[in-house]
């Protein structure tokens, strides 16, 4: 649109204090418990009192019947800025860009961004069957393969259209497992070979076991504040060079072949003032490897339909030519509900502040984090991305 106002930078704002509460396959604790652990870790690392947090952004599928407002009383917070971001895999990027603007405008000084979900025995099935009105009316009654079946259709269509193979997806999964092996909190750390990937049992053709994330309980969090506030707290933050967000892009595509990143990628790169070659690592939302490949394409690391070629040409471990999902991603780390939408962002903050819990990407200065989420009906609706830079 001509005449659109040029977007303002995020100068002076940082994301800091990356927190991960170690995941568990199943938890008897509530989402509230996991939120509480994450908040406590944020204040412990900064020496703040809980009431010093004057902003809260919450993402959780399992906190019901509460929302962010109930959590303020539950946790004894009294924020002057409050947000609830129920966007699944896009939650991290969306929470970051909203909190950054709030801090920049002075509406809040210290925004705690928290994503947490519990996973009781059988809670995953319950979440799926009531995930959305369209899911209830038009997806769950069809074989109830859940997201595996939805992504099977997307993956199959993508493979047919662009010639990607299971081996291509496998290469990403195997590299992520290698990255996970040094990450202390990853749930799956046994070695994964391409042979084992190929031989895994089918779940919903062409999706096999190692294409799927494992639902689990966990929490991720970070703090958004001004650069000088971070300095006074004695913590190092990362700068936000640019962000994008888009929902329900390309409804005309019969089956999802691309995400909203493709609409906004030029803005993302222009605003950041860097190009794909300047990026030292990429954290994609990896609920299934096909989505990581779409992100490579739609964010501009390769042309549309060329991700298979790209995957064959690159290596994806922390020391590879294209370090990707350096803590193992959700595929090896586990998918802790909405925390899955924070995992890449929290890992990016660690990599850029050279405080990785596992393998450190050498010379990590600029990183890209991408989010994707909400299979409302037949496709993921939410997409977002952020380019972050280490301390100046």
């Amino acid at each position, binding site marked *: 649109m001509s005449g659109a106002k040029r977007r303002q930078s995020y100068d002076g704002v940082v994301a800091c204090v990356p927190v991960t509460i170690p995941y568990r396959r199943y938890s008897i604790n509530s989402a509230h418990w996991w939120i509480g652990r994450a908040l406590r870790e944020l204040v412990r690392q900064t020496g703040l009192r809980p009431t010093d947090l004057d902003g809260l952004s919450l993402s959780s599928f399992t906190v019901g019947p509460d929302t962010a407002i109930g959590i303020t009383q539950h946790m004894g917070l009294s924020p002057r800025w409050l947000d609830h971001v129920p966007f699944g895999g896009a939650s991290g990027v969306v929470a970051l860009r909203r909190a950054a603007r709030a801090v920049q405008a002075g509406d809040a000084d210290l925004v705690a961004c928290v994503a947490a979900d519990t996973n009781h025995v059988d809670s*995953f*099935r319950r979440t*799926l*069957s009531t995930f959305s*009105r*369209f899911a*209830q*009316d*038009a*997806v*769950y*009654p*069809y*074989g*109830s*393969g*859940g997201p*595996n*079946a939805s992504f*099977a*259709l*997307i993956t*199959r*269509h993508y493979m*047919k259209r662009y010639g990607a193979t299971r081996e291509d997806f496998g290469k990403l999964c195997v590299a992520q497992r290698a990255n996970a092996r040094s990450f202390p909190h990853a749930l799956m750390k046994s070695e994964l070979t391409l042979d084992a990937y190929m031989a895994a*049992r*089918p*779940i*919903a*053709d*062409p*999706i096999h076991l190692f294409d799927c994330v494992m639902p689990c309980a966990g929490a991720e969090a970070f703090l958004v504040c001004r650069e000088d506030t971070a300095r006074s707290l004695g913590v190092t933050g990362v700068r936000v060079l640019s962000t994008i967000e888009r929902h329900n892009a390309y*409804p005309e595509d*019969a*089956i999802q072949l691309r995400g909203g990143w493709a609409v906004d990628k030029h803005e993302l790169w222009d605003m950041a003032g860097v190009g794909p070659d300047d990026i030292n690592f990429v954290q994609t939302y990896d609920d299934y490897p096909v989505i990581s490949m779409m992100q490579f394409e739609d964010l501009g690391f390769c042309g549309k339909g060329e991700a298979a070629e790209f995957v064959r040409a690159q290596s994806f471990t922390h020391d590879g030519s294209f370090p990707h999902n350096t803590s193992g991603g959700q595929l090896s780390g586990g998918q802790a509900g909405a925390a899955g939408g924070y995992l890449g962002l929290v890992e990016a903050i660690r990599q850029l502040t050279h405080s990785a819990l596992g393998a450190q990407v050498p010379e990590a200065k600029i990183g890209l984090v991408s989010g994707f989420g909400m299979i409302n*009906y*037949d496709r993921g609706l939410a997409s977002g991305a952020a380019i972050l830079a280490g301390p100046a």
Partner: protein
Amino acid sequence: MTEPLSRPRRKNPLKKTQAPLTPQGVRSRTAHGLTAAAAEGRFELQVCADCAAVIYPPRDACPACLSARLPFKAVDPNGELVAETTVRISTDPYFRERTPWRIGSVKLDCGPVLVAHLHGDTIEGGRVRLALQLDRSGAPVLIAMPARDVPNMAEDVQLREMTCDPKFRRVLITDGRTQVGQAMAKAFSAAGASIVFVGIADAWKPFPGDAALKAIERVEIVPLDITDTESVTELAEQNGGRIDIIVNTAEYTRPGGIVERRGLVVARQEMDVRYFGLMRLAQAFGPALRFRGADGVNSATAFVNLLSVHALMNWPAFGAHSATEAACLSASQAMRAELRPGGVKVVNLFFGPTETEWFQSVPPPKVTPAAIAKATIDALTRGLEDVFVGDVAEDVRERLAANPKALERELAGS
């Protein structure tokens, strides 16, 4: 190619009967527009009254123009199966027992993309025809069928979960003395039912059609008087565990209104045969039907009510009869709710005056017993829930939808 169904083996009495489970049946209020269409075998989706966009999944605002005028209308069911998958691992207990289960994305020629169950004879990239069905929970679902009919089409395992196909099933026809009962026996035998139990009260009393009825293949006469609780209970105790479909053919039709008729004797008799008879059948056979809803190829599957269309609006010339039929219709709605947990359908067939002795003085059009029997088989094979048989029934249904008050006045005058 769909494999023809093979005759189920005799049941091992030591094996546990598989408990019936149902798929998730909760739908939004708007999505029940699909339920209404599926119940009568129509294929309808929302069509925007303002911009003509065809819409799916069901919505409360048009995604093209935000209109709220989104009626369900018949649309072209043809399209392409763009992508398919076979679900091998399911979180849902019903589907877990039925994997592998094929689903796919169908792009309809008229616009929307729909996730649907797949008939075994559909292929990815090929043309398909979508149909709306009621699944075992009674909720509407889409299934992609082959674009053209194929051999043994009704015998597809996924489709059969949504229908009540009589093939290899055992049916009870509750009254074989009626012409409808006899036509029904013939039709079920021809449709491949493995046993056709036909109830006869006071078997020593001869009746027209007696010999022809007994000559029908796989017909087995059983003693049944549906006005006698003991008789109904006894039959249920003996055969209830191997009856998969019940068709209640007991009838009692007498002319006369409410004011004009003297005393309650006839009305009581009507209620005893029709309403209490239905209740006796429901109480004696219902629990076994519901228990056996997932009992293999010949699982319990349907209870069929034959109802006067004047159950929906009283016809004063047969005023007391209409009232009795209305009571039976109301009972059938309760039975639907009670049998649904077993995945057992309650099918209601509505029709006008039949070509039988008690409607002798009524002018045509009238419905023949054979037409009612044919419609019953068709309804079961297609998995329908409400069926209007014949011109009078169709006419009443249309007039009722257009203006119930007008219909009330019009029926009084005819």
